[in-house]
């Protein structure tokens, strides 16, 4: 079965600074990869997903992630963060043929300071 590790539980950054949230996965088969964002007291919102094709995936709110098969990573990046990006970010992995086996990481709390 696949699993996800988010290496940083908390990432504090200053406004307009770049940020990278790290995600590594393990799987013996090909996978789909996702990043979700959860704002306080809200549900999860899909930021971006990698299914196949180009390894650089662009998502909403200026985020992007790069799938690196050799390093089994799918790190999320944004060149300049805003206060409004403060939220919990979840990386998730799933086998392509099973919608009932999505595994989430423990989350990374991004705090953007003025």
């Amino acid at each position, binding site marked *: 079965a696949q699993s996800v590790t988010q290496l940083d539980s908390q990432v504090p950054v200053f406004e307009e600074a770049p940020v990278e949230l790290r995600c590594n996965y393990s799987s013996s088969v090909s996978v789909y990869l*996702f990043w979700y964002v959860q704002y306080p*007291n*809200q*549900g*999860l919102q899909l930021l971006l997903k990698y299914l196949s094709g180009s390894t650089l995936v662009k998502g909403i709110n200026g985020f992007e992630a790069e799938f690196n098969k050799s390093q089994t990573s799918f790190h999320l990046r944004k060149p300049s963060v805003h206060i409004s990006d403060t939220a*919990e970010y979840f990386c998730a992995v799933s086998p392509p043929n099973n*919608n*009932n086996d999505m595994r989430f990481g423990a989350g990374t709390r991004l705090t953007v300071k003025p």
Partner: protein
Amino acid sequence: DTAVSQTPKYLVTQMGNDKSIKCEQNLGHDTMYWYKQDSKKFLKIMFSYNNKELIINETVPNRFSPKSPDKAHLNLHINSLELGDSAVYFCASSPSVTRWETQYFGPGTRLLVL
């Protein structure tokens, strides 16, 4: 025009009680899900439901039972509530079981069992 809605938003109850959480989606999606997010923010899928086919994850106790009166609704019934059931429960939907990779989440129901 909320896409996925859940009621109630908060639920506080005593151990041993039976409770239900309702979920509705107005996206015309065929597939719906229930997730549990524990106190450490760890998110796990509990069920997926598509066209009357229910797939249950093995770790979910049989005290939990999803019920779908129609395609737009997937309610979660919990019998004999236990302290460990305290969590945030998220409903989600996706266009179909074959187009499941984009899931839309509800705002969550915060359940506290005393």
